[in-house]
C-alpha cells in the first residue's frame, strides 16, 4: 500500500534522528562547556554555534528545494513535490531562526538588532521567497498546479543563494567574511570542533525533519485519497437502486 520510498524513510529515519541528537548534544557540550571564550567577544562567541549551523542548513535546505523543483518539473513525481514542500517549510524555520539568533548576536557586538547589510538583506529575501512558496501551495486549490507554480518560484528564487554566499565579498559589509574558502580555514581548532559537530548535527536534523515532513504530506494525501474513494463508494452504494 505504501510507497517503497516512504517505507525506507520509516525504516531509516531513526538513524538520522539519533545521529543528529548525538552530534548536537556533543556540539552543545563542547560549545557551551569545553570551548574557550573569544578574546574580543568573550562568551558571546557561543551564539555562533547555533547561528552558523542554522544559516548553513537553511542554504542547504534551499538547495534541496531548488534541485527538487527542477526534478519535479522534469519528472512530475508527486513524492518529489512532497519532498520540496517539506524542505521549504523546514528551510523557512531554519532561516527565521538564523535571522533571530543573528539579530540577538548583533545587538551586543554591532550595537543594533538590525542593519541594512547585504548579507542580512539577502538572507531576509530568502525568507520572503519561502513565504511566497508556502503561500502559493496553500492558496492554489489545484495541488498539481500549485506545485508547478511553486517549483518555478523556487527555481527563480535560487538566484538568491549565490548572492547570500558572496555578498560578504562583493560588497563592503559589517558581517564577517567567509571562514571557509579556497584561502583556507580562518577558525581556530578550539572553535572548529563544536562548530563542526553542531553543523553536522543540524544537517542530519534537517535530513530527519525532511523525511518526517515528507511522510506527513504523503500519508495525508494517501488518507485523503482513500477517504474520497470510500466516500464515493459508500455514497454510490447508498444512492444506487
Amino acid at each position: 500500500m505504501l510507497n517503497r520510498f516512504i517505507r525506507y524513510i520509516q525504516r531509516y529515519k531513526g538513524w538520522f534522528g539519533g545521529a543528529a541528537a548525538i552530534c548536537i548534544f556533543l556540539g552543545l557540550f563542547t560549545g557551551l562547556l569545553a570551548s574557550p571564550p573569544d578574546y574580543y567577544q568573550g562568551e558571546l562567541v557561543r551564539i555562533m554555534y547555533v547561528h552558523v549551523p542554522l544559516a548553513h542548513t537553511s542554504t542547504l535546505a534551499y538547495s534541496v528545494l531548488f534541485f527538487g523543483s527542477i526534478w519535479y518539473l522534469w519528472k512530475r513525481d508527486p513524492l518529489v513535490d512532497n519532498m520540496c514542500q517539506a524542505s521549504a517549510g523546514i528551510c523557512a524555520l531554519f532561516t527565521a531562526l538564523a535571522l533571530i539568533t543573528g539579530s540577538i548576536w548583533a545587538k551586543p557586538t554591532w550595537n543594533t538588532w538590525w542593519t541594512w547589510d547585504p548579507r542580512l538583506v539577502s538572507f531576509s529575501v530568502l525568507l520572503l521567497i519561502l513565504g511566497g512558496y508556502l503561500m502559493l501551495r496553500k492558496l492554489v486549490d489545484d495541488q498539481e498546479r500549485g506545485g508547478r507554480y511553486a517549483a518555478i518560484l523556487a527555481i527563480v528564487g535560487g538566484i538568491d543563494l549565490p548572492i547570500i554566499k558572496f555578498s560578504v565579498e562583493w560588497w563592503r559589509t559589517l558581517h564577517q567574511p567567509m571562514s571557509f574558502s579556497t584561502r583556507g580555514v580562518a577558525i581556530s581548532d578550539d572553535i572548529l570542533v563544536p562548530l563542526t559537530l553542531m553543523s553536522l548535527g543540524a544537517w542530519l536534523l534537517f535530513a530527519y525533519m525532511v523525511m518526517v515532513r515528507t511522510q506527513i504530506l504523503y500519508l495525508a494525501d494517501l488518507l485523503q485519497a482513500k477517504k474520497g474513494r470510500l466516500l464515493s463508494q459508500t455514497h454510490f452504494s447508498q444512492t444506487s437502486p
Partner: protein
Amino acid sequence: MTGFYTRWAIMVGGIILLTIMTYHQYQRDLSTISLATVLNSPTTSETVRIQGMVKSETLSGAVEQGQATFELMDGSTTVPVEYAGPPLENIRELKRMVLIGHLDPATKTFKANDTALINNFGFVAAAYLITVLSLGWAIFAMSQRVMVLFKEIKEEKLYEPENEPLANNE
C-alpha cells in the same frame, strides 16, 4: 507509543542536565559579585570577579605597562583598586569593566591582577533557548503527526458511514 515518549524524555533530560551543568560552570567561573558583597565578605583572600564603572578623575598610573590605580563604583558603593597585570586596553574613566582579584582586608583595597569582558549571558541564553525550543517543538509535533497518520491508516478508520441527510432525503 511508550518508546516515543521514552525517547523524548531522554532527550529532554539530557538538555536539562546540560543546562544545569552550564549554569553551574558559568556561576562558578564567570559570574561577578557586587562591590558591597566583596566589602562585607568574611573570606577576603578568595579570588573573585567584580564589575563596576571606573570613577571619573581617579584613574592614574602607567596603564600601558599594566600598572594603574583607580576607584571602581557600582551604584553608591565605591572600592579603591590597585591593578597590576597585563597592559590595560581601552581603559578610560566611566568605562564599565570586570576585574579579577581579591580584597586586601587591611586597606580595603581591591588588588586586581586581570580583567575580563562584561558577561552577556542573557543574549547567549536567549539564542540557545529560542533555537532549542523552536526546533524541539517542531520535531515533536511532526513526529506525533506521523504516528497519528500511521495509526489512522492502520486502523482503517477512514470513513464511517453515518445517516447522511443527503442519502435519506433521496
